[in-house]
């Protein structure tokens, strides 16, 4: 029942509130006060949290390096930044993986394990990690959006569409982000040697229709609407 999902995700977002992980970045879990809890006496959840926070820090550094690489025009600079990003995603990935092993019930760690896997080109691993995050927290909008992008990366268009529709009900900003990724995907397909297939043109048509619906119904799920509806 679609509306049940709608409502539960809206209220969940309201009640869970924190931790509010920004898509692409993310918030730190509150770390144990320094000095008070030596790592070897920490509980598994605390150790996983510490690893998660380290890894998140690395991920943000990697995101910045990747941006530098994209923006750079000088070939040497571009290459250096790209390598740096790759190293940092690799290091972050290892720590997120450790965190999920120590505390398998931490959806944020699975989400970022998916994110760093995707950044390293390991799309099937990424999908498995997002599935895990979403099985722990079905209304997890960031994971829904990331998984949508991972579906696109492996050309699973129907699943990407479904991800968009689920997000549309619960988080318009992230739905918009995924729609932009879809537009970029179509552009890339068209630029590919041999041009785009008929399926790509159908998808583009679908995207255009969603752009229109989204513009028309801006007031329907305007930021905060779903949450304040309760």
């Amino acid at each position: 029942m679609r509306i049940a999902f709608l409502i539960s995700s809206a209220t969940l977002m309201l009640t869970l509130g924190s931790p509010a992980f920004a898509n692409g970045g993310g918030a730190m879990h509150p770390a144990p006060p320094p000095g008070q809890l030596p790592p070897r006496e920490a509980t598994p959840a605390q150790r996983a949290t510490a690893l998660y926070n380290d890894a998140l820090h690395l991920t943000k550094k990697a995101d910045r390096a990747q941006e530098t690489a994209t923006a750079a025009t000088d070939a040497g600079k571009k290459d250096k930044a790209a390598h740096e990003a790759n190293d940092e995603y690799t290091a972050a990935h290892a720590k997120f993986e450790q965190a999920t092993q120590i505390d398998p019930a931490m959806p944020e760690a699975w989400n970022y394990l998916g994110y760093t896997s995707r950044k390293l080109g390991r799309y099937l691993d990424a999908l498995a990690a997002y599935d895990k995050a979403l099985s722990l927290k079905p209304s997890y909008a960031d994971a829904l959006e990331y998984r949508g992008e991972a579906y696109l990366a492996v050309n699973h268009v129907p699943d990407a569409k479904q991800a968009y529709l689920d997000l549309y009900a619960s988080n318009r900003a992230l739905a918009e982000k995924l729609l932009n990724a879809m537009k970029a995907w179509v552009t890339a397909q068209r630029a590919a040697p041999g041009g785009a297939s008929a399926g790509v043109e159908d998808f583009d048509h679908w995207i255009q229709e969603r752009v229109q619906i989204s513009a028309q119904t801006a007031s329907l799920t305007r930021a905060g609407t779903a949450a304040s509806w309760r």
Partner: protein
Amino acid sequence: MSDAKVALGRRLFFEPRLSVTGNYSCASCHDPARAFSDARRVAIGATGQALPHNAMALVNVAYNVSFGWARPQVHSLETQMLEPMLNEHPVELGMKGREAAVSGRLAADPDYARDFAAAFPPEAAPVTFGNVVKAISAFERTLISGNSPFDRYVFGGEHQALSPEAKRGMALFFSGRAGCAGCHSGFNFAGNWRDAQGQTGRASFANNGASSIPIRVPTLRNVALTAPYMHDGRFATLDAVLEHYSAIGARVRPDYDPRLPRSPFTADERADLLSFLNSLTDESFVKRFAQLR
């Protein structure tokens, strides 16, 4: 909210023994086949007295901020329910002063004794007036509607679920020119907002030219089933409602709410808007509860 409580509430919603005359229930004014409204201009109580207002449809009421056409201070289904049960001027169900007698009669019915015990397990004597209210509220919270052609189009991605007319009507409905979504907003196409204090829901009340005081903006979900329209049932059809909004646009007055239309609609635009309003009917909602009679 257990299944047992919902099932009990569902039975009580249709229970004529709640009324002073023994032949009236919530469903006498809230008919499932009409999205839980009735076909009367204003509601009529058990003893035949007219109420001041049209019976409201009960659609997604679990998410209301306030209850009633013009009562920002009624905040819960439980508080709201005391009105039809206990009101004397005019009488609705007419339970005032008979609460204990009604509970006693239900307790003497073995079916109810069993169902109340299942719904309120730890209580030794569960058949109480308070528990009647709790059970009916639990049932009301299941009156969820979100599977109309509009929903299938916008949230389900079924691009054929709406006709071209309905799609044009939708664009007009959400446009600044028609202004409808300025008031009929959010998921329920209704006023459902907490005000700056986060409380009364007064932000959800407006004057659309059909009243002298601010009225709560009603939901438009299943609106094709809930004629007649407005708090006083003044319009018999949706066409007449659209005629009203068009007339407002034709002669704008300075005291009109700025969200209301600023120009009249053409015949085509009215037909498109009507198609769109019809696309808000959720057949599965009506079917799910129509069998309850």
